[in-house]
């Protein structure tokens, strides 16, 4: 009796890429969806929020100072009579812009250094990793504060001088100095974890049989890096970025709190919290509103990060 190989029975379904698979896994995770929705709301609020509120976040109304929350002022008003809800909404924009830009810079630096270190190894690797460890060893709040404190004045003076020479109104906007310093110094302390992660990823992926197989096919290093290493290292990076966005928001508010972040009158959750703390006992809403929103944002990103982690690295599936 002969056993003839038969055609292989395969169910006819549309092919599912790992990305789409992960996406559907993410949507089944309730906490992750909650996080995703909250993040989307934050993004929406940052993009359109300030247009939707009847009050300007800057316009003061000394008649209506320190009002308790009401229908006309959802979160009440502050000591200059500014609408807190509008300010919190605008703070969302500040927080998100800072978080996105800082994370983007940090990821760019981290990915470049980590990939180079992991791919070339040897002395290059050791030098980059030494530099990474060194950066990590400086207490980061201290570093940011020092950078801000020492560079803010000279930078503003330089801008002022440029203005006097060029009369370009661009140089009058001190907000650029703020953002430049905040972005720069925060990115400086945020990149090392990304570099370490990417390096570790590159090291593991490099030793996978499919990369050896690609080498055996004669493919060039460039193709291997682009088509084999990068797409497979992306998953953990996405998880790290999601978590990183959350911590960048917290960091921004911490710096604003210490007075080295975004300066008033630009609303930021950090400086609102800092202001609110001074009058907490009398006007609790001034503290509660920004603190609660910051907490929500952090929780949202951490839910999303956890969900992404589960979706992109499903345990037990091969």
């Amino acid at each position, binding site marked *: 009796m002969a*056993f003839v190989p038969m055609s292989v029975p395969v169910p006819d379904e549309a092919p599912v890429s790992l990305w789409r698979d992960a996406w559907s896994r993410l949507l089944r995770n309730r906490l992750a969806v909650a996080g995703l929705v909250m993040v989307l709301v934050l993004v929406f609020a940052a993009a359109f929020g300030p247009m939707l509120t009847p009050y300007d976040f800057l316009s003061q109304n000394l008649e209506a100072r320190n009002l308790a929350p009401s229908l006309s002022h959802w979160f009440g008003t502050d000591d200059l009579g500014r609408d807190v809800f509008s300010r919190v909404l605008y703070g969302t924009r500040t927080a998100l812009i800072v978080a996105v830009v800082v994370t983007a810079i940090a990821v760019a630096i981290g990915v470049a250094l980590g990939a180079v270190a992991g791919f070339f190894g040897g002395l290059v690797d050791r030098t980059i990793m030494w530099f990474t460890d060194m950066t990590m060893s400086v207490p980061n709040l201290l570093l940011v504060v020092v950078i801000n404190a020492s560079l803010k004045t000279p930078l503003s003076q330089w801008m002022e001088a440029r203005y006097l020479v060029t009369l370009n109104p661009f140089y009058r906007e001190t907000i650029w100095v703020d953002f430049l310093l905040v972005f720069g110094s925060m990115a400086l302390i945020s990149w090392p974890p990304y570099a370490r992660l990417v390096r570790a990823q590159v090291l593991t992926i490099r030793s996978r049989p499919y990369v050896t197989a690609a080498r055996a096919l004669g493919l060039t290093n460039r193709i291997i890096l682009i088509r084999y290493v990068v797409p497979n290292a992306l998953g953990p990076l996405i998880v790290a970025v999601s978590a990183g966005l959350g911590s960048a928001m917290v960091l921004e508010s911490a710096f604003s709190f210490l007075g080295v972040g975004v300066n008033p009158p630009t609303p930021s959750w950090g400086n609102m919290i800092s202001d609110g703390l001074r009058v907490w006992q009398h006007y609790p809403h001034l503290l509660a509103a920004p603190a609660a929103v910051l907490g929500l944002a952090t929780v949202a990103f951490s839910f999303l990060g956890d969900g992404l982690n589960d979706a992109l690295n499903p345990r037990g599936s091969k």
Partner: protein
Amino acid sequence: MSERLLDVTDLSIEIETRSGPATIVAGIDLHVDKGETLGIVGESGCGKSLTMLSLLRLLPNKIRVAGGRAEFQGRDLLKLSRRELRQVRGGRIGFVFQDPMTSLNPVMKIGAQLSEPLIYHRDMSRADAWKRSGELLRLVGIPGAEERLHSYPHELSGGMRQRVMIAAGLACEPELLIADEPTTALDVTIQAQIVDLVKELRKRLGMSVVWITHDLALIAGLADRICVLYAGTVVEDAPVDQLFATPGHPYTRGLLASIPRVSGSTMARLSSIGGTPPEPGRRPSGCAFAPRCPLAQEVCRQNAPALQPMQGSSNAHRVACHFAGRLMSEAA
């Protein structure tokens, strides 16, 4: 007739999936007699390990027993209280797992790991248990046993580690030793050492052994009786000689035919079974083997065949195939 030690009837196991529970083991019947060695043979994913793990409720997360009974010495293992279950685990039933590298705790000394069953089942003091552990290591043929007690697992070779696993399984002189592919992770020469060791220990201690494997050749010289599993059901259950001489199920025949033979002509194509086993949750209705079976008829796709004694053979040889008789006569 020999005395029953373990009697598993209609055992089903399910796995939780996104689209609801999926059956992995679909109504398995098997038994082990006192002093007997039963070989359980099947390909990966056929449920052979899960069946045995379920007896001691060691199933991984999301996998659970959906029904059936498993009587061991007259008591249903699946209904034991936690306390009773603990007494059976390692006390009356010993377990040896596949990968000795991961199955021993890497941060505990060998002696401490061997002592555990003695401490918890025999109420031995730590010192007595340690001493007895040394004797156990000698029993499984580890040279320098007393010093070895102080070693960590990673300091031993794969073969030595598997001997330690066996010693732990035997520590309380259980009535039944379940060995789950204990030699798969080992080299051939080491595999031969372990097989010999178990054969000898079985003779000396008079226990029953269930040996789970995917290797028909390995089990040929080891088992008294063999159960062949396919996609979560027993397709054939026969004394070892009968199974190899007159296999009753087309799957068993296919498996035997796909093993390369000494006498086979050079470069000849092997007989092979086409296709792949069904995934859990995608079991075909009727006989699970029907889609790959060269003999399959309409009836096979409709009705799942029951495990029945082969015509013209002893009651001990049972096959789950609508055409078991026809196969036999063809072979004759």
